[in-house]
């Protein structure tokens, strides 16, 4: 029974992180799939969201700025706004550049954000990062939440304590997973709406033939900045959820461009760029491959160490992580060459007017 519960919780955490990656992939889909903007600074925007959320919602701390202890939803909203604001500034400066230059610029922005997070120790606690980040649902069982409004209206501290004691200690996990998936669904519905709207068609037109779109009177630069900002806002929200999932974030390991930016790109390209469903499918698929390969490699290492006692399990394990990255990289190359439009290729909304 305990083992079944363990599998269940593992599955839920797989779904949670898969959902967060799906958000990132959807955000990238707006930028790359819709508008053809090559953003390789995903980790930077997610980091802005995560740190904003963390600083605003954690309890007061001497290690970093704040902990302002504000409501979680407020932290999430500001995380989105700040990621959007920064992307807007970058957009105004860099959006007119050719795709290659935009790629260099965004990778640079992500590095600068990392430098700021690392060096401004008064605000971010530097390389040691921020911990005790409140996680949605689980935070309800923290004293500072159930002793204050609105929870204190319904029950007193003893009553809440008794309630949380009666629940199994993982009660929040299914709720948190569902929350993440709900947000993925909401974002998906909104983006589908955007894709089928005149705005979405115009984005495709700009991506496919900029000159023609411009000749038709479309404000190309402005629309591109819009797509860039919308994508970054979604990435900021994903970063806030990532901070909740991990509860401890630091600038280098959590937001490693290899694990974040690169994996999201593989997800979008595998799933099908331009297709929102493809982005979600790719995210869950690649995340499942990524996590299950960890289990498989662990098993192989155990077998190897058992059969050759000269091998050191620790070294093998650290090397195997990089081997995994190597394989994901080769998967990307394979998809790029053989199936450049991904599993679910982009489908354009029909051009005919329904009223006629």
């Amino acid at each position, binding site marked *: 029974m305990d083992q079944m519960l363990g599998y269940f919780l593992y599955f839920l955490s797989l779904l949670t992180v898969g959902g967060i990656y799906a958000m990132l992939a959807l955000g990238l889909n707006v930028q790359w799939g819709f508008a*053809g903007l*090559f953003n*390789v600074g995903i980790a930077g925007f997610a980091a802005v969201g995560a740190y904003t959320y963390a600083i605003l919602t954690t309890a007061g701390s001497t290690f970093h700025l704040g902990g302002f202890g504000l409501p979680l939803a407020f932290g999430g909203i500001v995380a989105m706004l700040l990621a959007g604001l920064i992307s807007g500034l970058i957009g105004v*400066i*860099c959006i007119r*550049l*050719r*795709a*290659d*230059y935009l*790629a*260099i*610029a965004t*990778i*640079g922005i992500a*590095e*600068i954000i990392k*430098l700021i997070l*690392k*060096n401004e120790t008064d605000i971010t606690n530097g390389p040691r990062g921020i911990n005790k980040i409140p996680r949605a649902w689980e935070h309800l069982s923290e004293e500072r939440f159930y002793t204050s409004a609105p929870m204190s209206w319904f029950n007193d501290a003893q009553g809440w304590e008794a309630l949380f004691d009666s629940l199994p200690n993982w009660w929040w996990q299914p709720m948190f997973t569902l929350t993440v998936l709900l947000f993925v669904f909401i974002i998906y519905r909104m983006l589908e709406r955007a894709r089928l709207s005149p705005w979405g068609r115009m984005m495709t037109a700009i991506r496919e033939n900029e000159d023609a779109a411009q000749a038709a009177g479309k404000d190309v630069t402005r629309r591109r900045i819009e797509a860039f900002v919308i994508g970054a806002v979604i990435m900021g929200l994903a970063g806030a959820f990532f901070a909740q999932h991990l509860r401890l974030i630091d600038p280098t390991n959590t937001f490693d461009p*290899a694990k974040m930016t*690169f994996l999201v*790109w*593989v997800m979008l*390209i595998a799933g099908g760029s331009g297709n929102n469903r493809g982005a979600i499918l790719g995210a869950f698929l690649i995340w499942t491959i990524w996590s299950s390969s960890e289990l498989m490699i662990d098993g192989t290492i155990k077998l190897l160490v058992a059969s050759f006692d000269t091998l050191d399990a620790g*070294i093998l394990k*650290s*090397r195997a992580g*990089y*081997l*995994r*990255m*190597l394989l*994901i*990289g*080769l998967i*990307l*190359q394979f998809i*790029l*060459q053989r199936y*450049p439009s991904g599993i679910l290729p982009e489908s354009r909304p029909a051009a005919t007017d329904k009223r006629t």
Partner: protein
Amino acid sequence: MWDSFAFEFVNFYLVPGIVLGCIYALGAIGITLTFGILRFANFAHGEIMMTGSYLTWTFSALVGSVFGWALHPLIAAIPAIVVAIFISLLVDRYFYKPFRNSPTIMIVIASFGMMLVIRSAVQTLWGPNQITFVKGIAKPNAWVQEVSNNAELLLLIPNKHFWIMAGTLIITLGLAYLLGQTRIGKAMRAVSDSPELAQATGIDVEAVIRATWVVGGFCAVMAGVFMAMDTQFIETTMGFRMLLPMFAAAILGGIGKPFGAVVGGLVIGLAEELSAYPWIGDAPLISPGYKTGVAFTIMVIMLIVRPSGLFKGRTF
């Protein structure tokens, strides 16, 4: 005549800046050539650099353990250059060539992927930890110290810095000869200026592309080895750390202009080191933690103000 400020400025900011600039310059040559000739930003370039320095370390360690000789890194770099060029050509053949007629962004994605593939391959084989490249503390060159001290212009420059500066100068002169005098060099410049016209005049574009990888790979490995000689250690993220300054140098000098890239590299290297000099008051002008930001800022300003670079490079 050599007050303590000037002494500090020259020895601890100016000379290291030039040395760093030389390293960036060599790296940027490869970036600007591939950008000019193959027309894409090669994100995997820094990783070739890093792989080259790992191979150099491996060859000198191998020779050291088998024959007991302590090879100079520049000699151990020769086989490393051959292997790194071979890797570059293989990567081009299997991962970039299929996209020659696709939109360039496909090749950029492919090179972005190769960046991770090459780095994780090195991390799998050699492990993720730092490796000491040269042991011990580099002492300043005694002869230069004595002569300059007698002239009351005390210079503390270790031998490794002389190697790096002289090496960069020789490679730049060699490149000038290659591009200006040889047939393949002229063909490279022709393709960089106009690929269609070059093809129409009967230039073998594929041969030019191979030559580009050879020259770029050679310069990249030399930059990597010089970097390793300077910092005395190698790590798997060194290529990625260098990527942004190298792009900045290539854009500053003008895309497709190798000598622009050399000048750009020197400017970026100097700017990074000099930004930490206490120009106003006692504190560094810009905290050393933000050095990378300097290169980036120069690059963004350049892209806005003059995207063709200092030397009228190609704009896309």
